[in-house]
Structure formats: structure tokens, C-alpha cells
């Protein structure tokens, strides 16, 4: 510090900071124009939190509520929409945690069976999935191709592979599958993927930090990485050792082999990994792996087609912000917001940072369009689970994400950093920009929670995308979507035959009204969560759509002029098969 030489100061760009007033006022023209444009569009969907009336009343215990001394108590957890009993109605799975010194009654994960009448029943006890621990992420995939979706859960401690027995129960087969590891790990993101295109789902696991509770540092205002704005908070991730990540090859017999070293994955020890998604970034038919990373460059493992990967996030525009700053990457959403047939990426970040929207160029790299898109004006909250999905079925994918602070201690000192905050919704204005519309979409957007993962799926089979939200130390939120009448849609459910049965990695292009929208079947998305496997496309006023499928096996299939407002179930090599018809809700 030199008081007289002011020129010693230089601009810090480690965090993109900014007050809310600044965030709103710094792009006044953009925000006002966006609101004007939004008001010219038809009404949006209305979202209502129906968790209580559907039976989702159990609070999800995850760490303390007042002060959080350790990072493991803050990061979890994800949630999933998946159909565990194959009845055509998506069920709900939510990851839970515990306390450091105890496991309160009701702790642990929760499985809810969809009763098909708008309600759910807690079937955790029977399922065998309730094991309490520091669960973080979930990825869904039929690893043994037996027709039932299995679960892989990441933990601080030891991850678990749960085989779906097909009878409402799951068995922990971690050991026999060869997925045990020595020592504790802080597993976070995971994704099933068929990286070697042999028809069997392999498994990638991201790790967050190297952490030992016995020796972990404690909050301290005297240590930069253990304090925030002068308030003592949990240490990390900066200042904690960086782990490697893991890749397991499916041997086709229910077991896996650790190929982290052989694949080159474990050579990369640069980043604190969180959500992992498998996405064919360069559209060469081979799945790549994108990992959101906290306070370090995000990772993009490009598939070399020979069992190995090369890391290229920096040169492809996904590692850091457009200013070269390492962001706190939390959740990853993928979707085609500009309907150019290429899958874009939306990554959630930290408070006082813009979340990042990355436009796919079609050449395997990305342009950071955060500012131009209008997404960048919102920087108030720590942001987590997210999506790029068409929530109002107007044919243009919107952006949604949930929020919640990591430091509950802060709000006692600084009111601008609340512990609980509202979800955020940006409506697609159909011109490459978005407008934040929040409360226009219903009372759910006024509710404040400390949220983490969220999953997207149509739980009531009424043709629009509902939202499940994991809230720490509260019951989850289930935001029922009431989409505006008159907007059409189509859902696509894929089942591989030569490809993996879950069709994870299948890229689908739906054409309608001169547009083309791309999506991919994924194992994990959002923040450490899993969306339902039926791909949902809003069609606006179009009554038909054509569907082009790029299967992981390399096969390409086309289905022309499919009628809107139906679920189309397609088996690889067979075609459209009879699926359960949707009931049209009366609007």
C-alpha cells in the first residue's frame, strides 16, 4: 500500500464483480429493450410449486444452516427425473447429506415413485437407495443394457453404483463392478458415456478437491482462501489440493476397468471438477466430456477415437470467460438456443460473476456470447442447476437456473449476499438475446431457497417441461409447468439396440417451421443432476416435425413429418414403436 502513488493500483479481474444496481443499470438499453421485446411475445408459462401437494414433503438434510465450516457440507446435491420402473411416468430421486457429527433422522437420499395422478410415494426404504452420506451427484444410465436405468452416485467418501433390479429395488454393486477406490475422494460430476462406441456405457467421474476432514483447514479471516469479504468461511476450493478425475471402461460383463491413466484423463490435474456432461462437441460421432470446474479452467476432454482423450477447453473457448478469467463453474446445460442445429452450452457461476453462455460455432469451438445475449446482466447469486430448454413450447429454448449461497454466514454481515434466493428465468427473444422475466412466470419465482441441483422432466405427462429442485435443508421444489395453450411440442424417447440401450450420446435434430433444434441424450446435466431421458422439443405453432437421429453406433435415421403433441418412441434400427399416448390437458 502506498498512499501517494495511486498508479500502483491495477485492475483486478479475478472476479467479475458488480452490484445489482450496476448490473441492471450498466446495460440499461439492453435490459429495457429486452423487456420491451418480451412484452411483445405471447404469454409465457406459469410455474407453480406443487411439491407439498404431490407428497414431496421431506426436507433434504444437507449440512448445517447457520455456519458451514467445511466445503463438503455445502456442495451437494443433485436430483433426477428418471423412470426406474419403466411405466412411462418419470419418478424422482433426490440426493441428500447429513451433518458432520451425526446422521439426523430422515437424512439420506430419497426415491419417489410417480403415482401417475400428480402425486408421488416415498419408496426409499424399499429401494435400498437411502444410504445417508455426503452424496453429491447422480448420473443415470443402463450400464448393463438390461432395460432398466441404473444409478451412479458420487459422494465425498466412496461413490456407489446401484444396479436397478427391475422390481423396485436397487443393489449396491460398486465392489463387484470394480468401481471401488482406495481412500476417500470428493466425487461430484459423473456421466455414463460410450467413449469407445462398443455399445456399452462407460463411466467418467469428476472429483472436486482433495479433502481430509481430519486435517482440513478451518474458516479464518487471516487466510485469504478461508474468508470472503472479511468474513470467515469454509476454506476452498482454492487453496486445497487439486485431484485427478477418473474414467472407467465397461467390460460388457457388469464390471469396469479403471482406464484413467491409459486414457490420459488422469494426466490433467488442473481443475476442481463439478458437473460432467458427455457431448459430441465436434459432431464427429465420438462423445467428448465437458467438466465444469470451480475457480479453475473448465475441462473439455476431446475423444481421440482410440481410447484416449486430449484436453482442449482453452483453445475451444470453454475453459475461461471471454476475458480470460477462471470462473466458478457449477452446472452445465446444453441446448440449441439459436436453432442452428448445434448444441450450445450454458454454465452457471458464482455470485458477482456472470453465468456463461457459449455459442457453438459448429466447428467444435465456442464463442462466449454472455454479454451480447443479455444473460450477463444477472450476477447477484451463486448459481447451480440449469437448463437450455423450451419451457413455453414456443419453439425457442429458454434459460432457467436455481440459486443459493454457499456461505450462509454472509447474510448476517452483508444483506446483498442472502443465503436463500430465487430461481432465475430468461426467456428466449428469438434473436439471439434473452430477457429476464422471473415473476411473470408465476409465484414460484418469488420463493427463496438454498438450491443446488435441478432436473427437468414432464412428471405429469402433459407435454411441457416441469422442474424438480433440490433445496438444502428444505423439502424439494416441484415446479409444475402450465405452458400456454396453442403451443405444440414433440417428445422423443430413444432406445439403442446396437448403441447402448439408454441411447446416451444420441444426437437428435428436430426440424420444424424452417428451424432445426439439436439436443443430445445425456446421463448428467444441470448441476450434478439428471434430466428425464425423453427429449422435449417445443414446436410453437407447427403441427409437424421431422426427426433426425445420430445414434452412438454411427447410424443415422430420419423420421419425416411426425405429428406434434406426442411422445415418439424410437428403437434403433427398428423405428417408431408404440409408446404410451399422452393425455392432452384441457387448457
Amino acid at each position, binding site marked *: 500500500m502506498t498512499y501517494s502513488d495511486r498508479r500502483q493500483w491495477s485492475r483486478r479481474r479475478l472476479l467479475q464483480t458488480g452490484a445489482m444496481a450496476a448490473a441492471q443499470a450498466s446495460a440499461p438499453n439492453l435490459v429495457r429493450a429486452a423487456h420491451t421485446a418480451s412484452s411483445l411475445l405471447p404469454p409465457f408459462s406459469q410455474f407453480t410449486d406443487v411439491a407439498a401437494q404431490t407428497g414431496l414433503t421431506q426436507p433434504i438434510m444437507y449440512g448445517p444452516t447457520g455456519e458451514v465450516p467445511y466445503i463438503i457440507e455445502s456442495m451437494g446435491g443433485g436430483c433426477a427425473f428418471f423412470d426406474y420402473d419403466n411405466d412411462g411416468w418419470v419418478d424422482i430421486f433426490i440426493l441428500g447429506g447429513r451433518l458432520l457429527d451425526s446422521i439426523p433422522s430422515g437424512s439420506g437420499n430419497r426415491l419417489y415413485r410417480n403415482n401417475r395422478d400428480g402425486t408421488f410415494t416415498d419408496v426409499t426404504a424399499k429401494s435400498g437407495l437411502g444410504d445417508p452420506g455426503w452424496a453429491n451427484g447422480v448420473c443415470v444410465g443402463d450400464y448393463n443394457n438390461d432395460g432398466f436405468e441404473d444409478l451412479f452416485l458420487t459422494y465425498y467418501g466412496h461413490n456407489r453404483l446401484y444396479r436397478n433390479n427391475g422390481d423396485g429395488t436397487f443393489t449396491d454393486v460398486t465392489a463387484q463392478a470394480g468401481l471401488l477406490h482406495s481412500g476417500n475422494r470428493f466425487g461430484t460430476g459423473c456421466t455414463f458415456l460410450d467413449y469407445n462406441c462398443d455399445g456399452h456405457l462407460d463411466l467418467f467421474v469428476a472429483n472436486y478437491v482433495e479433502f481430509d476432514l481430519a486435517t482440513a483447514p478451518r474458516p479464518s479471516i487471516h*487466510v485469504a482462501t478461508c474468508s470472503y469479504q472479511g468474513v470467515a468461511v469454509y476454506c476452498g476450493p482454492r487453496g486445497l489440493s487439486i485431484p485427478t478425475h477418473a474414467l472407467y471402461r465397461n467390460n460388457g460383463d457388469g464390471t469396469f476397468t479403471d482406464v484413467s491413466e491409459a486414457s490420459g484423463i488422469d494426466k490433467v490435474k488442473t481443475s476442481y471438477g463439478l458437473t460432467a456432461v458427455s457431448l459430441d462437441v465436434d459432431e464427429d460421432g465420438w462423445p467428448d466430456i465437458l467438466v465444469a470446474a470451480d475457480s479453475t479452467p473448465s475441462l473439455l476432454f476431446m475423444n481421440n477415437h482410440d481410447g484416449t482423450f486430449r484436453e482442449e477447453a482453452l483453445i475451444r473457448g470453454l475453459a475461461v470467460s471471454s476475458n480470460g478469467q477462471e470462473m466458478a463453474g457449477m452446472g452445465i446445460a446444453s441446448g440449441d438456443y439459436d436453432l442452428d442445429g448445434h448444441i450450445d452450452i450454458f454454465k452457471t457461476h458464482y455470485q458477482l460473476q456472470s453465468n456463461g453462455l457459449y455459442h457453438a460455432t459448429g466447428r467444435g469451438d465456442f464463442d462466449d456470447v454472455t454479454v451480447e445475449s443479455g444473460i450477463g446482466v444477472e450476477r447477484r447469486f451463486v448459481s447451480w442447476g440449469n437448463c437450455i430448454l423450451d419451457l413455453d413450447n414456443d419453439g425457442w429454448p429458454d434459460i432457467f437456473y436455481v440459486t443459493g449461497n454457499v456461505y450462509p454466514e454472509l447474510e448476517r454481515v452483508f444483506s446483498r449476499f442472502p443465503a436463500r434466493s430465487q430461481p432465475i428465468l430468461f426467456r428466449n427473444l428469438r434473436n439471439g438475446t434473452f430477457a429476464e422475466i422471473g415473476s411473470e412466470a408465476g409465484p414460484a419465482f418469488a420463493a427463496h431457497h438454498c438450491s443446488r441441483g435441478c432436473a427437468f422432466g414432464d412428471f405429469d405427462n402433459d407435454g411441457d417441461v416441469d422442474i424438480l429442485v433440490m433445496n438444502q435443508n428444505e423439502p424439494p421444489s416441484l415446479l409444475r409447468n402450465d405452458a400456454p395453450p396453442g403451443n405444440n411440442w414433440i417428445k422423443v424417447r430413444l432406445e439403442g439396440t446396437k448403441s447402448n440401450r439408454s441411447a446416451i450420446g444420441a444426437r437428435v435434430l428436430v426440424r420444424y417451421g424452417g428451424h432445426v433444434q439439436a439436443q443430445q441424450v445425456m446421463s448428467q446435466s444441470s448441476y450434478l443432476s439428471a434430466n428425464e431421458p425423453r427429449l422435449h422439443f417445443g414446436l410453437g405453432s407447427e403441427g409437424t416435425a421431422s426427426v433426425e437421429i445420430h445414434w452412438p453406433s454411427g447410424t443415422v435415421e430420419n423420421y419425416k413429418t411426425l405429428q406434434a403433441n406426442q411422445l415418439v418412441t424410437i428403437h434403433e434400427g427398428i423405428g417408431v414403436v408404440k409408446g404410451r399416448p399422452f393425455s392432452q390437458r384441457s387448457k
Partner: protein
Amino acid sequence: MVHKLTILVFVLLGIEGTARAAECKGSEELEAQVQAHPSARAWGALGGWFGEQHQFSCAITAFQRAIGLDPTSARMHYFLGLSLYSSGQADASIAELRRSVALDSNDLQARLALGVAYHQLGRAADAEKAWEGALAIDPNSTTALDWLAKARIAEGQFGAAIELLSSVPPDEDLTIDLALAYSQSGKFDKAADTLSAALANSPNALRIGSALATVYVQSHRYQDATNLIRATLNAHPNDAATELLYLRLLVLQDDDADAQPIAQKMLAAHPQDFDALYLSGVIENDEQQYAVAIDHLQAASRLNPNHYDVRFNLGTAYAHQKQNDAAREQLEKAVTLDPSKAEAHFHLAQVLRALGQTTDAQAQLKLFEQCQQATTTLALGQTKAGQAAQALDAGNATQAISLYREAIEALPQDAVLEYDLALALERASDAAGERAALEKTLRLRPRFAEAENQLGLVTARAGEVSAAEQHFRNALAAAPSYAEADNNLGTLLGQQGRDREAEAFLRSAVSANPRFGQAWVNLAATLASESMFPEACAAVESALRIDPRNADALRLREMLAGAAGGEHSASSPSSASAQNPR
């Protein structure tokens, strides 16, 4: 720097008086007095009058006449010295001020003035001696403390500055000096605590508030800094320095909405001001107003061509305008000015790629990754070090040692970590380990004064007297005002019966830090060994002024009283009271 020679008659700015000697005419009354009774006193009064009128040439003449009548008047030599300094004759002023000090060694003002004159001529060591002399007369002289502390800080002797100021009377300048010394040595929380306490006592102290805001920013406490500066600005809306600080803070946090109006106002008032141009340019760049940003940043770079952030922002503004050649030029300058800035390498890589220079672009990306990796590694090492410090504070030396080793594994070239490990090993009574760590510290940073001092203690405890002496001397060579090293060397020499040498170093210790009670006691014991009993008693009294309950000082005083009563005393004060080096 604001200095506190407020009692001086003249402003020490070398302002030439307007009257010439030939035209000197004082007040009627004083002129009449020198005519009637041309005494030194009368000439002195006339000289003082000329001084107040800034007629320094006339003042010089008058004081010279006074000195002619009373050559032994320390006061007249002092005033003549001030007059000479004020008229730009610093060299001549020193001679007079030295005469004043020689004639009256207890004249505080003369020593202070002498220090300022030496400082003006760039004679830092002489200036410090003058101020140390002033402190010997009055250990609470805030002026002397302020000058001396600033000198130590300027030399990078932050520890010495902290030692000097650790228990001084409340004073705004000294508080800021102490906070500056703390922050320069990375102790931001202590800096903040010091300033917060002062601000609590004096809520309207503008400079204290600004200093505290600066420390908050250095500690990443941006919210606290913003709240404080806003409150300060509300109380002092016309204070330009506070407004500038506020603007810098807003720009730092990308709060363009609040920053831009202030910047525009500042630029309108001062269109050629570097800060106004630079900060306006940064805001405009952020707001995508690239053309005007380029204009302002170019003007700023003409005023200061070596400002990293100006070059960086100019480069990115050009890049956004697709003026890639200009962008490259600016970004290349930026990375030359500060190669550690990852962002500059990143943007330069993008520009080079746009220019088709793929190989160079890849090289810049590599550098970018290295910078990021360095940041991550630094955070890891600092966390481990912070944890280690906490463990040591909690009394767990073993855990601290383990954590320091982990920190060193991350940051193997960090001499301070190695030194901290040594201190932890000392707490664990691992003398061999401590020594090895200190030796490694010195290999990493050869002029690390604290490490040399500590190694001196280690070798002294091991009975390696020559080695210990060398290490203490090395410490003093690296940090001449290092009172602890002075004391340790003096004590070591005293233990060997080299009293005269010991005395010199112990005097140096108390001169560097007049509040160093133990050094006063050691000096007293050494003086007593040399049978310099009055001086020894004076030294003991100095120790007791600092702490009336100092047991060693009380015991030594008793013994000296006995020794004064009989010349040869059975108990030697030096053996009873001289502490081992610490």
C-alpha cells in the same frame, strides 16, 4: 508527506524571501531595539520577525549578527540554520544546525530540523541518526517517530518500523505509518485493526478512513471498503482524494453504473489528469464504448507510457474494434510490463490467432496457463501456511511443521515459508531441524535479516560464538536498524567481555527502538561493566520509564545503587542482568 515541525517558525520549502539584504527593514519597534541595544537577543528577535515575513535573506543577516555577539547561543545557530534551509541553502543549514546540536545536545527541535535537512539532501543515514538523537531526548516525539518510521518503511525495514511504532501515543500520522508497515509486510488484518481502532476514536479522520479503505481492498474486503468510502464521501463530499479513491474502488468492482458519472465529472474538471483519463477509459472499455475508450486511454498512455493496465485496456479496446495490429502492439507492451498477468497473455493469444500467427498464439496460451497454474499453486501454499500458523498459535508445533512442509512443497522457493518452518521447529525444540531450515532460508534469500538473526541465536545456543557473531552482523548489514539484532550482538559481545564493542551495538539498539526495554537493561549492564555508573543508571531509568515493573531493570538499579555506594561490588551488574541473545 505531512510532517509535524509545526513549531518551526518558517515553512521549510525553500521559498525565497522577497526582500534583499540591502533593503532589510524590520518592524519599527524591533529596529529601534537593535539600534538602542544591539544585543544578540535583539538581533534574534529581528531575525525572527524577518523569518515570519519570509524575508529569509534578512533573517540570515540578523541571525548572523546575533551569533556574532553570542557565538555559543545554540538557539541562534538553530534559527540561522532554519533561515538558511528556507532560502535553499541546505548544505549551509546543516552546518549551523550541527553547531546548535553540539552546543545544546538536548535541543529536540534542532535535531528534528537537522534530520529534515539531511533528508532533503538525500542523506538518509544521517537523517535517521538525527531523528534517533531526537528520540533519545524525547521517546514520544511524534515528529521524530513519524520521520523515522517513514524512513524505515522506505528502506523496506517494515519490522523495524513496526517495532518503533508498536506502542506510541495516539497520532494520526503514526497510526498510518504503522498500518503501512503492517500492510507492506502482508499483515493486513493487523493494519486493519490498527486503523479501525483509530477511526473508532476519530470518526472524521479522513486520512485514516482512506487508509483503512485501501487496506480493505488489499484484503479483498471490497464490501467493507465500499461502505467505508461511501460514508466518508457523505461526510466529506468535496474531498477530491476520497472521491478518486471511491472511483477506483467502483472500477475495481466493475460497478460501471456508479463509476461513470464520477469519472465523467472528473474528466470534465481535469481533462489532462492521468487518473481521470485512465479510469474513464477503463469504464468505457467495459461498457463497449471502444472508440472513446481508445481516445482516453491513448491520452493516459502518453502521460504514463509504462502503466500496465492502460496498455492492457487499450489493447483489448483495439481488439474489440478488430484493429488487431494496434491491439497486438499494446498487449505486447502490457505483457512486457507485467509478465505475470494471465489476462494479458490470454488476450494477446486471441489477437495473434486473429492475425493468423498461430504458433505465437499457442505460445501465449501456454504462458497464460502457466500464470494460472502459478496462481493456483500460490493459493495452495498460502492456505497451508495459514493453517500452519493457526496450528502454531494453538500450540500444536508438530502439526504446524507438517503443514509448513506441505506449503513448501507447493512453493519451494518461498524463503518466508522456510523461515516460518524454522520458527515452528524451534517451538518443537528441534534445534537441528531449525538450523537446517534457516540455512535453507538464507540460500533462498541471502539478505534475510530475521533469518540471520535467528541463526545467530541458534549458533549462540550451540556455543558457536564466532558463527553467531557473524550471523548477527549479517543481519545488521541487511537491516541496519534491526534493533533485535543489535541487542543480540551487543549481548554476545558483552558475554565475551568485549564491552566497548557491546556498548556500541546496544546503543544502536536503543537508538533504533527507544522502547526496547531489554536493550536498555543490557546497555546499562554493559556500561556498568565499564564502570560508567552514571550512564548505566541513566540507561536503567530509560528502561523503567518504558516499564516501571521491569524486574531486570529494578534489580540492576539496586545493584547500581550499591555499586555507586562502593566502587567495587562483589556482584557484577553485567553478569546479573545481561540477558542471553534473544
